[in-house]
């Protein structure tokens, strides 16, 4: 039976792909050129602005694009995404503390990595949570 995806599900696939590509590109550039230039790879996340739901809205979306179930899924996914983000943030800050010690230091240009990587983690966590909920609902 044909089972088309909702616009939220298509967006989740798109954002998961973009965020994964950004993370892989960051890893590759980090190995080749170091942390500074690798940060540029995270600019790929800007592509999420061109996701299916935004394009649909621009063209004139179908009659019912998102309904109450989609909004409930979106709310739960956001909660999961932000929880994953928070855990990753705590792990990153505590990890630096554990590795460098209480008197250690890190370069200031490492700091932009925290919000950028946080965006990637949040997007991946939220997208996976969305896709899992849709998969369970079939």
């Amino acid at each position, binding site marked *: 039976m044909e*089972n*088309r*995806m*909702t616009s939220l*599900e298509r967006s989740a696939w798109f954002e998961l792909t973009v965020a994964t590509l950004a993370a892989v590109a960051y890893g590759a550039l980090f190995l080749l050129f170091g942390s500074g230039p690798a940060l540029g790879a995270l600019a790929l996340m800007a592509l999420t602005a061109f996701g299916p739901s935004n394009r649909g809205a621009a063209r004139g979306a179908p*009659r*019912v*694009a*998102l*309904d*109450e*179930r*989609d909004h409930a899924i979106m709310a739960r996914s956001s909660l999961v995404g932000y929880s994953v983000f928070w855990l990753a943030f705590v792990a990153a800050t505590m990890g630096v503390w554990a590795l460098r010690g209480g008197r250690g230091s890190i370069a200031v240009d490492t700091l932009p990595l925290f919000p950028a990587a946080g965006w990637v983690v949040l997007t991946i966590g939220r997208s996976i949570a969305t896709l899992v909920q*849709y998969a*369970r*609902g*079939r």
Partner: protein
Amino acid sequence: MPNDRLRNQIRRLRFESGEMTQEELGGRAGVTRQTIIALEAGKYVPSLVLALRIARVFNVKVEDVFQLEDRE
């Protein structure tokens, strides 16, 4: 805590209403076809407003569409 499950007659009512499609029911109730699929499969519990809208589409009472079923 009660261990109830919400049963529904949406599929039967669709076929009794001239084999209404999920797409058509979704359009008339203001939800996507995927939500109708999830409802028919018992994987989604609708809001009261949606339950009333679906009952209105079939021109029946809400308890003719949705019933509580005790699992115990």
